[in-house]
């Protein structure tokens, strides 16, 4: 499964969600499909996209929040899995694209290439719903099911270590940040 195909498959659902992505290929690929004001791309601070998603989900429990994470980032903040599990907001869906490598910096293999199991670690951390999928159809079905479940889910999608040739887009970080904040402000609880 290619990550960009997985993103395309669930893009109509993502458009209706608040989305926080990690840096690099995930950010560039989602933007290449189409940026939306509810999408925030954390271009650094590896590991903290899931913490940001948790902060948003706890603050705005009426909004569906999707974090698009990666194996390298999750491995940098394994403790964050236990924090998410502890508060387990039902409006948070934690997707991990696991390509078993640090693709954005040259493809160095991560520990998931030697057997570390992110879905297993998430389950052991106490995340109430976890799954690992390997095909687009499985991914789409699991994604839709997780969005509808109203239970914190970590969904690990095993993807190929392939990404776009460049990661820089024409959306400056601060423009993204302020647009995203304004978007969250505009989506009021009564209408969300």
């Amino acid at each position: 499964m290619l990550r960009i195909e997985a993103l395309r498959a669930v893009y109509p659902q993502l458009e209706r969600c608040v989305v926080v992505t990690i840096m690099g290929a995930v950010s560039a690929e989602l933007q290449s499909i189409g940026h939306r004001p509810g999408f925030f791309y954390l271009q650094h601070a590896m590991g903290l996209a899931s913490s940001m998603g948790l902060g948003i989900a706890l603050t705005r429990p009426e909004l569906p929040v999707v974090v698009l994470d990666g194996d390298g980032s999750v491995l940098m903040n394994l403790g964050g899995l236990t924090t998410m599990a502890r508060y387990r907001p039902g409006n948070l869906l934690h997707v991990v694209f696991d390509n078993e490598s640090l693709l954005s910096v040259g493809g160095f293999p991560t520990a998931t290439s030697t057997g570390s199991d992110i879905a297993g670690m998430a389950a052991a951390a106490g995340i109430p719903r976890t799954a690992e999928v390997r095909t687009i159809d499985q991914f789409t079905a699991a994604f839709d099911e997780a969005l509808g479940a109203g239970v914190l889910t970590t969904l690990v999608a095993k993807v190929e270590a392939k990404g776009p040739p460049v990661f820089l887009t024409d959306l400056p970080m601060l423009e993204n940040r302020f647009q995203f904040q304004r978007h969250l402000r505009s989506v009021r609880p009564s209408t969300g």
Partner: protein
Amino acid sequence: MPVSVKHSQLIYDALKACGVTLVSALPETWLVHLIRMADDDPEMTLVRLAKEEEGVGISAGAHLAGAKSAMLMQNHGFLASVNGIVSLARLYRIPLLMLISYRGEFGERDPWQTEGGGTTEPLLQALDIPYDRLDDPGHVAHRIRKAQTLAESSLKPVALLLCRDLMWEE
């Protein structure tokens, strides 16, 4: 335990008066009452962390989603949060109100706390983070309010050092 309940309450009330509705925390001795107060308060969202750097992400998410937050940590937790402070809070102009228990200052009896003391202020300065000390009950409410105001107007991290003379009753 001679951690001051009275002064902890003063700090907590000042945070509430600033409109703080979410507190992230990693326990340490001087913070126990503050964390309990947040836990007992139905109006407060308390997020207990595994590591302090997560708190930068939590506060960033809370800020963008419209909530005022504060971070309770030991100075060693501040040391452990530096990348998040630089590459999330500073990079993306996120206000952080960091309340840092200042271990390892004059009067410190625990040998293992002594290296962090001398590193804390030089690191705050190196990171260009405005900070002030909380070492007297008379200025607690005022300084917390001013620090929170600057964090929100500058969209940057600020720090308050919770000092021994305020937190500890000998």
